[in-house]
């Protein structure tokens, strides 16, 4: 059953991404000021939405449910979200090199995003350092919530500070800087990435179950 869900999610993601690639490269026109490079937004924004959604889910899971099963799910979601947040940093950097002429600028949006990414990377490292499951779950949940405060700061950074980073362009954030036809593929790509990320989280959860089975078999072997 789980295999079918993974395959189904991947199939939906591949179909949506294929259709979106056609729209992004063949239908959507170049942006007036930036030219073709603006198309990076179609991977940059959906991946950050996916990453932030994952961080939100991860920070709530264990504290709401208080069950170790949810702690494992939170760890899986965080790991996958971290990969997506890494894409945001990489694609943003490539866009900045073309538009700003530099790979990186220590301005508020970029710096807070990097700190956020490092916080969640620290979360995963912390989990490896603590053996006792309940303590690991509690401390990880605290770090995850601390990390989510960072997510809010990243999101609001372009409103609070004068930054080099472009101002909001999506109509849902009051930007209105894009034609409706140019905005659509961003949301469809987001849906595709959420499907892909969900499939990855299910695989990650299955690996966690195998790890637990190995641990219990080892304990059994030691008790002989």
């Amino acid at each position, binding site marked *: 059953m789980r295999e079918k869900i993974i395959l189904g999610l991947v199939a939906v993601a591949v179909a949506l991404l294929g259709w979106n690639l056609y729209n992004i490269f063949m239908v959507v026109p170049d942006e007036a000021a930036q030219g*073709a*490079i603006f*198309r*990076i937004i179609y*991977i*940059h924004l959906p*991946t950050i939405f996916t990453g932030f959604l994952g961080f939100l889910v991860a920070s709530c899971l264990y504290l709401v449910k208080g069950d170790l099963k949810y702690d494992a799910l939170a760890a899986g979601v965080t790991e*996958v979200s971290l*990969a997506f947040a*890494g*894409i945001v940093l*990489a*694609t943003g950097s*490539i*866009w900045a090199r073309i538009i700003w002429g530099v790979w990186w600028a220590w301005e508020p949006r970029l710096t807070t995003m990097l700190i956020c990414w490092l916080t969640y990377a620290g979360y995963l490292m912390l989990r490896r350092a603590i053996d006792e499951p309940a303590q690991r779950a509690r401390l990880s949940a605290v770090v995850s919530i601390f990390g989510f405060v960072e997510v809010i700061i990243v999101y609001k950074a372009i409103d609070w500070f004068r930054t080099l980073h472009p101002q909001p362009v999506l109509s849902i954030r009051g930007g209105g800087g894009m034609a409706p036809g140019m905005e659509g593929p961003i949301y469809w790509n987001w849906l595709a990435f959420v499907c*892909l990320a969900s499939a*990855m989280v299910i*695989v*990650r959860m*299955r*690996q966690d179950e*195998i*790890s637990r*089975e*190995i641990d219990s*078999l*080892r304990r*059994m*072997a030691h008790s*002989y």
Partner: protein
Amino acid sequence: MFYGFFAGWAIIGFYVVLLGLRERKLRRELDRVRRMVEPGAK
């Protein structure tokens, strides 16, 4: 632009490969431990 798309897909691809390698390692370990605890095993 293509570098941006390539970087995005490269990171996803790298993570998927990492997941696959981890799964293979875990399954090998599970088989090894199962054989260890099977009745009759030394």
